[in-house]
């Protein structure tokens, strides 16, 4: 029986391929319109933060309102450089994947402010539990481009020794946690890490990121529960880029209330922020970090942005959303917006911008040249496959040593059954 109409609500995006992009569902606030409360505020008194949209950059590219963090233009130029580096790195790695030289890639186009602003607002001793689109945060916190490329190549300098898909980086030195690949699992880790920090009497905080789609996972709810119960010093970021592969944010429950309001039932304040406004993201992150550091507990931040590219190199968004949707996104492009702000301040120009982009392209090219020296998928040097048995346990147990020996023996043979039985 075909059901034409039922009382069941099936969420549908406002536009599919061929339709005119329609962001009428996106509730916006003018820049500067949302009050900035003291960090000591009770959650119940600041619920409005979860429903408005904190913005600093206005339509005339000026920084306005109570959330304006007053960052020096020279520092904003540095921020712009990081965002552009993230973008140029992604563009190159995407091409490299398309040329078949790496197996997989994920770009952060349109979401660069999320990582770079957080990088600026957090301290080196704070621990980050990133999602797979936070490569900008790895860069900002000191992971070298060549090391990230070597990871994507699974070559002899790969930090993951060939064990992880491209982009699943980690860096203990940078306090950047290992990316899992399973969604939302890092959220309760961030909360536990933050709880441990508080137990130890330290003032380091933790921060984590996931997408709008991943908020549906149980781990999201577990994390919020534990963060609320123990008032863990943690910032929980929901990067609402409108799309979880082909399902729009309504499929994750975004139609009813903003993701920022998800914590209110537990007493966790939520801030809905313009994720493409580096100044606003910086200011809200700093507010939440100060609050957490002073014992005020967790904050949930929803960063409203747009996934400018495909979900991954394995995805084709033209099959499920209008091709020109990004251009119609009302919050624009974070790189363009910061660039225009700096130009409005008289501290930047198109010419300088083009020159910077060229410099960054060269930097990426140089890193790629260097990375290939450590091996590619087709040309050596190659990783020793015998290392696959390392690090399963702190000390390799006998059965894994036996399997390692067997693997080496079989690889060296012609499959002729030489040696012992399997």
């Amino acid at each position, binding site marked *: 029986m075909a059901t034409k109409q039922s009382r069941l609500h099936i969420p549908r995006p406002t536009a599919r391929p061929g339709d005119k992009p329609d962001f009428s569902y996106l509730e916006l606030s003018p820049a500067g319109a949302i009050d900035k409360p003291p960090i000591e505020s009770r959650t119940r008194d600041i619920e409005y933060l979860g429903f408005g949209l904190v913005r600093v950059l206005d339509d005339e590219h000026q920084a306005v309102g109570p959330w304006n963090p007053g960052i020096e233009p020279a520092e904003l130029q540095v921020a712009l450089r990081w965002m552009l580096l993230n973008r140029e790195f992604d563009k190159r790695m995407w091409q490299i994947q398309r040329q078949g030289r790496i197996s997989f890639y994920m770009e952060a186009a349109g979401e660069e402010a999320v990582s770079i602003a957080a990088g600026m607002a957090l301290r080196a001793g704070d621990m980050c539990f990133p999602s797979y689109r936070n490569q900008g945060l790895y860069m900002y916190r000191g992971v070298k481009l060549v090391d990230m490329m070597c990871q994507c190549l699974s070559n002899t300098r790969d930090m993951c020794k060939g*064990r992880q898909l491209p982009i699943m980086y980690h860096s203990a030195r940078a306090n950047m946690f290992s990316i899992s690949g399973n969604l939302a699992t890092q959220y*309760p880790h961030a*909360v536990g890490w933050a709880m441990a920090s508080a137990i*130890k009497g330290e003032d380091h905080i933790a921060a984590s990121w996931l997408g709008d789609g991943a908020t549906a996972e149980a781990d999201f709810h577990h994390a919020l529960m*534990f963060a609320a119960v123990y008032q863990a010093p943690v910032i929980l970021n929901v990067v609402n880029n409108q799309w979880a592969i082909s399902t729009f944010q309504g499929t994750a429950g975004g139609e009813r209330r903003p993701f920022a309001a998800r914590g209110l039932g537990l007493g966790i304040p939520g801030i809905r922020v313009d994720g493409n406004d580096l100044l606003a993201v910086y200011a809200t992150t700093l507010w939440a970090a100060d609050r957490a550091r002073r014992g005020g507990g967790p904050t949930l931040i929803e960063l409203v942005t747009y996934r400018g590219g495909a979900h991954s190199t394995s995805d084709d968004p033209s099959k499920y959303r209008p091709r020109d949707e990004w251009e119609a996104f009302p919050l624009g492009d974070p790189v363009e917006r910061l660039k225009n702000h700096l130009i409005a301040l008289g501290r930047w120009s198109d010419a300088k911008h083009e020159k910077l982009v060229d410099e960054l392209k060269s930097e990426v090219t140089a890193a790629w040249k260097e990375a290939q020296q450590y091996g590619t998928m087709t040309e050596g040097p190659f990783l020793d496959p015998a290392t696959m048995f390392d*690090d399963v346990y702190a000390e390799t147990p006998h059965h894994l040593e036996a399997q390692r020996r067997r693997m080496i023996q079989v690889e060296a043979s012609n499959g002729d059954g030489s040696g012992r039985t399997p």
Partner: protein
Amino acid sequence: MAQMNMIEAIRSAHDVVMDRDPSVIVMGQDVGYFGGVFRCTDGLQRKYGEHRVIDAPIAEGGIIGAAIGMGVNGLRPVAEIQFADYIYPGFDQVVSELARLRYRSCGEFDSPVTIRTPCGGGIRGGQTHSQSPEAIFAHVSGIMTVMPSNPYDAKGLLIASIESDDPVVFFEPKRIYNGPFDGDPDKPAVSWAAHEKGEVPEGHYTVPLGKAEVVRSGSELTIITYGTLVHVAVAAAEATGVDCEIIDLRTIAPLDTDTMAASVDKTGRCLVAHEATRFAGFGAEIAARVQKESFWNLEAPVGRIAGWDTPYPHAFEWQYFPGKKRMMAGIRSMMEIE
């Protein structure tokens, strides 16, 4: 030395380790003020405070997930899951995160979490308080899977687990918390007081992970088992008069294959026994290893005694549980094969 039942031994293990190492913390449902529904953490919160013995919300995935994060930040968490039957909401955190963190980050990150959880039946617990899911965890590389069968081993293995830099899932057969159980439900319960393994040192010691123990020497048949069924096997062996060598694995993964092979090479016959369901149970791995390592010394196919391949039925617990009768029948049938 002191007389301890398994609950007291487990409590003592916590106490000893928490006293030596301030990074050890305990988290779980009802573990704090109340001291655990089985009393295994009784008194620890009073002694070590609310920041080290933490009552958790009823969210197993959250308990394990948060424990992993604590471990990454330098603590050594012991997470209690109130019943092994309740562990599944946390399964992804165990399999995808806890077990693989060291591997995927090439040792840059690890989290030495110990997950303690009571398992097994024989307590009228029905299908949600009786399961033995050890094989599911043994299948996952990167974690160790442990199941003690007596107070002495429970304390020593738990201390070793907490002190291990690898994550451990530590199963506690709840039927033998208060006394050994020979598999005959009609006999009165006995305490650990009369059992030599109820003598437990009060201080620090370890029982090594990954090492099985021969609990009874024999020449005719090797019984490889663990947990509650160790005691059932001992009683059944005595009752049949067959000279059985009984191996208590203690650690299920990594598996002590040397002890297994040495015994089966000697006896020529092997019966594997566990309470969990048989199909794709851990006994299958044991049987495969035994036939591989001891094939030319085997005089009979490897036999298996296990729970039936059904959920654990409340009213038919003693028909389900592989008790003394089934073990005796299994031993006798192994000896009938020429």
